[in-house]
């Protein structure tokens, strides 16, 4: 397991490096400049500013400089927000986003797993069909439609929950539910399929032939095996939550990273865009890393040395 973990860490660093490089060069290809929007600057001033930010240096020099700063954890400073460091900008905003994303992932996984398990155990019954309908709704209704719907019913009509803003736990409920819908739908579908497949496998038949009871078989034999493939989709779902939160944060006026990211894009704020991109990528790579480790924990064929692929 230790070897496996170290190996994953190395992979994680390599991926990080590649993404940082790609981000850098893609940004350089983008047309426009953060300075163009302020037309009041004279050409001399622009030259001075370019000099100050090192934008006149040859590309390789800029690249090395950028990588060096990155390694130190320095993402540069914003062109727009009074020169404040990007890390500070991200730091101020990350709390709300992280809480929202985390809550949505946890809620989505738990509800999704439960629905999937029920659908599989009671397959071809009313429970199964009910779960299918929920899943279809969850996949096909965009989260912002769902969010607007909830705001209207729960917020405006019934006045059960605050319509927007971010001032306490009750404010997090609607955006969390809106973001988790897609996760619930996907995990429940996946879990149902996998569990049904596992329940039809030879080793479940052998467990039955040993005289194990139905629930015992599901808990001791089926769930763990069904979970292995389900873990794979956590990565993509995390991405879905990240992108989904860009919209959801706008709708609920949540002071999160997504909202700031959207603004910085419209203002061509290079360093903030790059910094946030790098940050999102790092987060994603970290999630993949956690998923890989989870794999190892659950599946002995990965964890135990001497295993065949």
């Amino acid at each position: 397991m230790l070897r496996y973990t170290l190996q994953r860490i190395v992979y994680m660093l390599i991926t990080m490096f590649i993404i940082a490089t790609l981000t850098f060069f893609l940004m350089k290809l983008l047309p426009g400049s953060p300075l163009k929007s302020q037309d009041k600057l004279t050409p001399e001033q622009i030259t001075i500013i370019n000099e100050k930010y090192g934008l006149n240096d040859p590309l390789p020099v800029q690249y090395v400089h950028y990588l060096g700063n990155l390694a130190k954890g320095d993402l540069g400073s914003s062109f727009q927000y009074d020169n404040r460091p990007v890390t500070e900008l991200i730091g101020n905003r990350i709390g709300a986003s992280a809480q929202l994303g985390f809550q949505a992932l946890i809620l989505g996984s738990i509800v999704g797993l439960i629905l999937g398990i029920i659908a599989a155990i009671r397959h071809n019954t009313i429970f199964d069909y009910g779960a299918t309908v929920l899943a279809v709704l969850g996949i096909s209704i965009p989260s912002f439609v769902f969010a607007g719907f909830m705001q209207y019913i729960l917020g405006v009509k019934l006045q059960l929950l605050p319509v927007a803003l971010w001032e306490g736990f009750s404010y997090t409920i609607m955006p969390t539910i809106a973001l988790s819908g897609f996760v619930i739908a996907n995990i429940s579908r996946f879990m149902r399929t996998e569990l049904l497949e596992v329940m039809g496998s030879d080793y479940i038949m052998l467990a039955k032939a040993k005289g194990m009871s139905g629930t015992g078989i599901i808990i001791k034999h089926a769930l763990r095996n069904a979970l292995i493939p389900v873990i794979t989709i956590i990565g993509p779902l995390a991405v879905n939550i990240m992108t989904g939160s860009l919209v959801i944060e706008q709708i609920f006026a949540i002071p999160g990273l997504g909202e700031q990211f959207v603004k910085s894009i419209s203002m061509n704020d290079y360093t903030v865009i790059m910094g946030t991109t790098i940050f999102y990528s790092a987060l994603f790579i970290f999630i993949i890393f956690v998923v890989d480790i989870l794999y190892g924990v659950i599946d002995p064929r990965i964890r135990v040395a001497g295993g065949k692929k």
Partner: protein
Amino acid sequence: MEKVLEVKDLHVSFDTYGGVVKAVRGVNFDLKKGETLAIVGESGSGKSVTSKALMRLIPNPPGRIAKGEILFDGRDLAKLSEKEMQKIRGKDIAMIFQDPMTSLNPTMKIGSQIMEGLIKHQNLSKSTAKERALELLRLVGIPQPEVRINQYPHQFSGGMRQRVVVAVALSCNPKVLIADEPTTALDVTIQAQILELMKDLQNKIDTSIIFITHDLGVVANVADRVAVMYGGQIVEMGTVDEIFYDPRHPYTWGLLASMPSLDTSVQTELAAIPGTPPDLMNPPKGDAFAPRSSYALEIDFEHEPPMFQISDTHFAKTWLLHENAPAVEPPKAVVEKRRTMPSNFAKPRLAEEVVL
């Protein structure tokens, strides 16, 4: 000899969208203490369905035991509740499946998979169950059991895994062991080892075995009696000698003729039985084998033959044994090996009301 299991007129059906598949259609047999009964027959003849029905492991829906009795220990297993069946499975009747690569749980340690049944049926504590699991691993010939017990299935070879499955099956000293093609997925040398192991253990714990196989060569080595299945029915049954040296059913002739023989130096031609198995959704009117039988009589397409009895132990379901039937010549491979059986009746009689 004492009977441990008695199957009477067993019918198993599957309700599918296309219609009802009658996979097992009136199977009768019994199993005596300590004996090995082989069930042979081509793919789809209902061997696995029969054996799963005995343990009530037919998935329902779509499957169900439509009719019949499975008498074990004075009880009819066909009528027991799921809860009561769970007390019998693994304890009194155990099963070994065909593919050792898929029949062990990949995420559970070998030891736990063996101990599970012991803890459930014999109320052993964890530590006693572990002792017993070690003992079982030793018994089935797995080296270094102390190390192996904590390993996972992927760390074992196919043959070793099947040994583990045998250990699981024998853990509670079952009265009946059902082995559904336990060696088919293994290569020949390993096959022989596993068969040897099973025979050995059978002597030690005095289990009766139902041994399902495609391979008549294996049958000769392990079985006391043989039941030949065709289209969901037993068409011939007898002792190993009776089936090998005095077969009476044309389907059995076909099976024997298509078996590569090791003992004859003359290379007899391998004759696969022509035609396809019957449609179990609409079984033919007369004998299910008639469309494929080169010996078929007119009556065969009209009426199903009854079971005839050739000796106390030998039964065959074919009109050829009727006193008015014309004499026919079996395939050369069968005739060459034919011997007269001293215990045969003077002539075949109708096996009415026989409890086989």
